[in-house]
């Protein structure tokens, strides 16, 4: 809890330098006072902190900041908070200002203090003033105004104070609505080691992320009771670009985040559940908005080369002009690996470019991404075969049809956005984006079970399923939030309207290939073209009643329309007259998904908020499953969320949320088709605990625990084709871990204050993940997974070195585990009893990285 103080507005300009790395402040001051020829540190770069979302009035926060010999912020604490005399305090206001100031000052970069020409550690006071926008005649966007307000007084004029004034700059949108909304900043994201950029998602409470099928295929995600497979339950947005692909052949909402480069992932904005009107398609378990940027400390030209186990090589180049905003950068990444175990080699390359430009009330942002990956895959192996020694855990079955597994992915997206920040909270955005995605995979889950539906008496040539999917997308987005209006003295609010629309043209096919004869096609299962349009409109009233109550009420409606050219529809069976009619089934459907999005926040105490939210969302369908004229071609989602959030300033924030989610029609992975199949209505009931602690400047720890009970309400009944459905009502939803725990922690300290004129910083990071046994079809349960990752790092001037270890306990864990029938037996009778299958996760592996930032 921070100490309140209302002191007069006096600018502090005390630069106190210390030569001892760990000396307490007073001791350091004494030492510095006696030191001659001192060159004071200067602020080189640093963004303005946002004006706190719920704060009012003016405040001046004075921070005590300890700098390393490189000018890097080592520690920061609040010395005092000053308020204009007579200004009323609002609950939690001081904490909000303090948190905002502390969060941003850590990214500041200074020129080092020098004594007798030698760089030394230093401690400085940094005052930051917050002025609300309503009192400001001109509202200055943060990055545009940064050069003016950040310019420190020259060090040589003897008046070396830093004075930063933050004009009321708010986020473009009010993002936090429910107890299950989380903002995870870079500091927490990079606490634990991450093998890939997309692995930062593991920090999200309740989320698991594994990649068991090679670099070419998207990660498999679960989020608080949803097995999202490759993304059908999570709306992923990266730099305002929607990543999920509708009606994808591998599963609707397919979202490959393999293009993410960890160095430019700045923050994650997580909205678990459905409470924000802006949440659109696939926001079933929630939405994750990945913010991209490079903080001032890392700006410049950065080269990082990594070498690791299994012939893994990774090269990252990041270019972030120091004079540009945090959001402006270019980054490229190349990765190659021999893969752990057999048939897992792969390569990937990706590029990300983002640039914010313009000045005044309207600024512009361009973003582009390019990604391509090709990787072999070992697919799945049966657990009983592993136990019998038929195939090893990390191996592939010794058949051409298994060894031919692999995936190619290609994606290009560009977007252009204009952001408006007007007076009195008014903000707006308009944007246009384009995308092209190409996907081709060959996977064999079931061995030798399939029979050709096209060729008579043709079977047993290997169930190598080829899936191809090409999507061309065009999207428009726009939103506007009005200036604040105040109908009563005790109430004020804003109204926001927006649209998110997209048009996709999809061409997809699915075939069976004979790998022994140059991938000869021996059956065609899907050959379709789809035109899909989603026109979403939403409105949001954000209303504050007094100082305690914040009510948000909104609604969203999406018009979903589809035209499907199913070229294999009505296919003539082999027994019927082949010339009776031509195959093909063309159809169209249109429906409207509409529902409210509401939330209520009660700021009971300065450090305590009570939140409740309810929303109705939707998930678009696999269009090929639609009938002609179907009116409701979507899955309806009802999501409720209630909880508390406690903010004890910077040292500790925590939240506890309970949630319930109902789906009208859910899907689950079907191995026989290598895609998703309907499993009927489902319900999730659970809770999430999340805490992030920053007890000292050099340490950050986040912890999350998610428990959920996910059950099937109305599974599909038995049919002639499926006389033994794998699910019954009341059964646990398959593949959903009932308990997920995650810990991310890191410590960062100065090891040597002077090593060749530069200090040596040390870093230690740990990531712990645990998933309870996932229920599987046919009454099976997967083996629980517990993983420990750790990293050691050294920063010496512009050079960085790190050693990362993954799966340190060398667990033979399943990145994915299933239960279905397969036939890999070639010298005995095949089994028709569902068996446990695993896609192996990576064993113990290391990655060493050396980097330089110029």
């Amino acid at each position: 809890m921070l100490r309140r103080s209302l002191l007069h507005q006096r600018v502090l300009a005390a630069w106190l330098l210390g030569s001892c790395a760990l000396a307490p402040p007073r001791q350091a001051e004494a030492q510095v006072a006696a030191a001659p020829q001192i060159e004071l540190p200067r602020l080189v770069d640093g963004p303005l902190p946002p004006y706190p979302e719920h704060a009012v009035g003016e405040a001046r926060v004075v921070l005590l900041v300890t700098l390393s010999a490189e000018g890097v912020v080592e520690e920061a604490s609040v010395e005092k908070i000053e308020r204009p005399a007579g200004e009323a305090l609002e609950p939690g206001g001081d904490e909000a200002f303090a948190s905002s100031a502390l969060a941003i000052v850590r990214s500041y970069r200074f020129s080092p203090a020098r004594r007798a020409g030698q760089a030394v550690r230093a401690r400085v006071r940094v005052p930051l003033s917050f002025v609300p926008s309503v009192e400001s005649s001109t509202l200055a966007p943060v990055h545009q105004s940064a050069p003016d307000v950040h310019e420190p007084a020259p060090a040589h004029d003897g008046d070396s104070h830093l004075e930063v004034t933050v004009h009321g700059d708010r986020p473009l949108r009010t993002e936090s609505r429910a107890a299950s909304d989380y903002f995870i900043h870079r500091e927490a994201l990079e606490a634990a080691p991450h093998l890939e950029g997309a692995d930062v998602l593991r920090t999200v409470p309740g989320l698991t992320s594994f990649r068991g099928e090679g670099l070419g295929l998207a990660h498999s995600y679960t989020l608080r009771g949803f097995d999202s497979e490759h993304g059908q339950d999570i709306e992923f947005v990266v730099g305002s670009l929607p990543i999920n692909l509708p009606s994808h052949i591998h599963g609707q909402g397919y979202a490959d985040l393999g293009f993410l480069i960890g160095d430019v992932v700045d923050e994650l904005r997580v909205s678990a559940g459905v409470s924000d009107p802006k949440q659109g398609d696939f926001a079933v378990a929630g939405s994750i908005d990945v913010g991209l940027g490079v903080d001032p400390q890392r700006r410049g030209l950065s080269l990082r080369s990594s070498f690791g186990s299994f012939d893994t090589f990774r090269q990252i180049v990041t270019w972030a002009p120091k004079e540009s905003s945090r959001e402006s950068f270019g980054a490229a990444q190349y990765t190659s690996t021999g893969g752990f175990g057999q048939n897992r080699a792969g390569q990937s390359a990706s590029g990300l470019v983002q640039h914010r430009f313009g000045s005044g009330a309207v600024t512009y942002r361009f973003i582009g991404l390019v990604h391509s990956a090709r990787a072999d895959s070992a697919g799945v192996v049966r657990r009983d075969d592993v136990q019998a020694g038929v195939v090893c855990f990390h191996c592939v079955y010794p058949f051409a049809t298994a060894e031919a597994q692999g995936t190619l992915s290609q994606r290009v997206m560009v977007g252009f956005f204009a952001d408006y920040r007007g007076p009195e909270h008014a903000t707006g955005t308009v944007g246009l984006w384009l995308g092209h995605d190409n996907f081709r995979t060959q996977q064999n889950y079931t061995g030798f079970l399939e029979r050709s539906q096209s060729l008579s008496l043709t079977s047993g040539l290997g169930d190598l399923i080829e899936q191809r999917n090409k999507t061309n997308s065009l999207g428009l987005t726009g939103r506007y939030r009005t200036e604040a209006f105040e109908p009563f003295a005790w109430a004020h609010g804003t109204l926001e309207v927006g649209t998110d629309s997209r048009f996709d043209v999809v061409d997809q096919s699915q075939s069976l290939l004979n790998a022994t004869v140059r991938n000869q096609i021996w059956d065609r299962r899907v050959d379709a073209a789809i035109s899909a349009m989603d026109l979403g409109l939403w409105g949001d009233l954000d209303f504050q009643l007094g100082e305690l109550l914040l009510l948000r009420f909104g609604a969203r409606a999406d018009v979903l329309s589809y035209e499907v050219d199913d070229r294999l529809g009505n296919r003539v069976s082999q027994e019927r007259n082949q010339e009776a009619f031509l195959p093909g089934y063309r159809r169209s459907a249109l429906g409207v998904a509409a529902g409210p999005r509401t939330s209520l926040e009660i700021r009971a105490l300065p450090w305590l908020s009570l939140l409740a939210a309810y929303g109705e969302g939707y998930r678009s369908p696999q269009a090929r499953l639609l009938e002609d004229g179907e009116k409701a071609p979507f899955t309806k989602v009802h999501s409720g969320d209630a909880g508390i959030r406690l903010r004890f300033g910077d040292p500790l924030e925590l939240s506890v949320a309970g949630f319930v989610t109902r789906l009208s029609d859910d899907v689950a992975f079907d191995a026989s088709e290598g895609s998703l199949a309907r499993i009927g209505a489902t319900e999730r009931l659970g809770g999430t605990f999340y805490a992030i602690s920053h007890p000292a400047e050099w340490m950050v720890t986040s912890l999350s625990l998610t428990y959920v009970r996910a059950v099937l309400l109305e599974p599909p009944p038995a049919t002639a084709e499926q006389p033994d459905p794998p699910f019954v009502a009341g059964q646990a939803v398959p593949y959903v871990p009932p308990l997920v725990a995650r810990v991310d922690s890191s410590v960062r300290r100065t090891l040597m204050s002077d090593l060749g004129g530069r200090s040596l910083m040390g870093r230690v990071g740990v990531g712990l993940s645990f998933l309870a046994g996932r229920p599987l079809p046919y009454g099976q349960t997967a083996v629980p997974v517990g993983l420990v990752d750790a990293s050691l790092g050294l920063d010496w001037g512009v050079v960085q070195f790190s050693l990362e270890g993954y799966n340190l306990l060398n667990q033979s864990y399943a990145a994915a585990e299933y239960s279905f029938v397969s036939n890999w037996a070639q010298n005995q009778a095949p089994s028709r009893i569902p068996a446990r299958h695993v896609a192996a996760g990576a064993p113990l592996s290391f990655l060493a990285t050396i980097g330089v930032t110029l």
Partner: protein
Amino acid sequence: MRVWLGAFTLLAPLSCAVSSQSELELELEVSGTKTESLPLAGGGSVRLARAELAFGPLTLCPGAQAGALCETARLEWRDAAVIDVLSATPQLVGSLVGMTGGVLSYMYDLGVVSLLGENGSQFVSSAARQLGDASLLLEGEIERDGQTIPFVAHVLVESQEDNEQGVPVVRKGSTETFEHQVTSADTALRVGFDVAPWVASLQATDFVQHEVCRSGSTFVCAGSVELTCATDGTELERHDCADQGSICAPDAGCSARVEFQPQSRAYRALVQALTAGARPSFEFR
């Protein structure tokens, strides 16, 4: 770390929910029928010395139709064993493994399994190998008109190319009733075979022929006499097999015993009886 994992593992069962099925293992017993003498169509009787069947694998299906529609089985026994069909004593051959739930159909092979895959299309079990790469071994003699004719039959029942590959050759009959709700209270399944319907498919002429030379025939049997015929149907030579203490076997001539050839009517009749004739009895206990 282990403590940490253990603690969470203990918490995991909190998520208990309804499970659709539970795993199950049933003893599989197979028995035959004690048989003294069986009538032979066309006259005479058959006395069997051996009637051994290579039985298995066996699959019980949740749906009413077996075969390719039985993609997911309820219970299965993937092995095969030689069954003494002349013994009524139940023989424990292995275990059926699978899950609880209803079964509405069954299918089984007779020692030879049709496979889908790269390495071959057929798997011959050790049980079939014991019987000389056959599904059924019948050995005995017939009594007809005071004459004793020994015989032996090695019948191979395998999937034909014009049939569906990769599915067992014997399936529940279309008019047959087979229904049981398998629960954890079930401990065993007894399958009972009876050789009588198979023998009933044989005819006296399969063992004893009274033919004369016809156009196109090379030799025929006239009782115990082997006739050698010209292509125009005239008799060239006759030879009484009884003089050598042998018999005249149809399509084989003088032989110590009758052996059914795969193209013979008797052989085909036995295959038909095994695959499409009377089914075995199934009794859950």
